[in-house]
């Protein structure tokens, strides 16, 4: 096989024996998982605020947010063009793009990367749609192994209650309506998310995810999160005597992928709540 020497030599997961720097990066990768309404986004947001308040360099990345892929995904969802396999493949493309342009560079530069959903979301959702489990693990093998994976476990009733109380309406794919479980959106959501819970339960052991009881008060959960994270911060990249954008620039991190850090420190009340 011919391989040209370009600037870009792709390295894959351990299965293919080609992980960059043998999978050893100076940075730290912390990911959160859980079904919709589990409260994981709130927790990772609080975590980022805490890390930033300690002047640590954080980079936040979110499922389904690649600037070059997400418009296609969105179109596929709006026009209901997606089937289990195309849903799976387009999300893999989105993830690959973020690994290449955001996650890997940040980890190699030594930053703490916070990911709201990771490959486990694909494993859970796509498996629940009948996509081959082993195939999913093989195609996502280019993913970096997280330093810490937190799974926010919540019973269905609680998640539905939270969604009804706050957020926007349930989406067509979010509630698994493409699978024809039920014409009733809430009923379909219940069936689909129930399947996701089963998938997540099986994965906590397979991938060593730490389970957090997401029915507890927010501050209690956050305390637990910080206890898990604290030991990982020993050598974390910190901002010293310079602005965060400067530090990011020095680490070779710039451009539209890098979200500006939260400038706000937690209020006294928030700190007291912890």
């Amino acid at each position, binding site marked *: *096989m*011919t*391989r*040209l020497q*370009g*600037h*870009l*030599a*792709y390295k*894959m997961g351990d299965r*293919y024996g*080609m992980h960059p720097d043998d999978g050893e990066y100076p940075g730290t990768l912390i990911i959160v998982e859980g079904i919709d309404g589990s409260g994981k986004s709130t927790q990772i947001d609080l975590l980022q605020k805490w890390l930033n308040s300690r002047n640590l360099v954080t980079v936040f990345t979110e499922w389904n947010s*690649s*600037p*070059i*892929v997400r*418009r*296609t995904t969105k*179109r*596929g969802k709006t026009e209901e*063009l*997606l*089937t*289990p*396999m*195309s849903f799976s*493949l*387009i999300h*893999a*493309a989105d993830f*690959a*793009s973020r*690994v*290449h*342009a955001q996650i890997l560079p940040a980890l190699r530069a030594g930053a703490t990367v916070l990911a709201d959903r990771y490959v486990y979301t694909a494993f859970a959702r796509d498996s629940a*749609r*009948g*996509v*081959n489990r*082993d*195939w999913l693990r*093989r*195609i996502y*093998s*280019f993913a970096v192994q997280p330093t810490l994976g937190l799974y926010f476990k919540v019973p269905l009733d609680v998640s539905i209650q939270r969604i009804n109380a706050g957020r926007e309406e349930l989406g067509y794919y979010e509630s698994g309506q493409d699978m024809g479980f039920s014409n009733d959106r809430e009923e379909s959501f219940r069936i689909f998310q129930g399947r996701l819970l089963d998938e997540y339960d099986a994965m906590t052991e397979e991938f060593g995810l730490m389970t957090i009881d997401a029915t507890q008060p927010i501050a209690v959960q956050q305390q637990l999160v910080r206890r898990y994270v604290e030991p990982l911060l020993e050598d974390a990249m910190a901002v010293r005597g310079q602005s965060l954008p400067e530090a990011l620039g020095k680490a070779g991190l710039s451009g539209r992928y890098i979200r500006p850090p939260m400038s706000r420190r937690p209020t006294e009340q928030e700190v007291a709540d912890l």
Partner: protein
Amino acid sequence: MDEIKFYGHTPPSVAGEPTPGRLIVIEGTDGVGRSTQIGMLQEWLEAEGYAVTVTGFRRSELAATGINRAMRGNTLDALTLNLFYATDFWDRLEKNIVPALRTGMVALVDRYIFSIIARARVRGVPARWLNDVFEFAVVPDRVLYLDVDVEQLLPRVLAVRQLDHWESGEDFLRGPDLHDNFIRYQSALLQEFRTLAEEHNFVTIDARGSVGDVFEALQAEVREALKGMGDA
């Protein structure tokens, strides 16, 4: 084919029913004359009374626009492009190719998974991973590979248009000379195609001859592939 066969596991939502049609793939690098030949094959087959569907790269309803948009930018890496192509391919496989095979049509496909795999391989994406990704593809009845030398390719391409950024591998080759990059990239691509031809039993057709000669060679192979069709 009659019974649909995949390279690996059977993907959801396409298995089951018999597929009396035929899947015929034309592969080859840019400028080798694929579209001309496919147009002629379609006309001929339709005149013979076969229902034909033609599909090719970046023509899916779902992903075509997105890929074209992404390729205009400069942050598109080989892995993302590959998975984007895989999405486009699957969308056409599921919504066009497989339904056509089920209704007994001849599906003529202008570049299948092999062009996608060859392009990714020269960019350093591991072959085993690529084989894994595309194990959801249907095994074609025939893969007809139009083979040509790189020396022949350049004048053919230049006769109709300028050299293109992606066709010259300029997303990962760093030389200043477009011509040089084109030659290096297309040579590497040809080598990958020849490797794939062995791995997947392509029927290699010498595309250096006249359009008529190449067409005749293709016709003979297609005729073979269509044998027994509609007999059931």
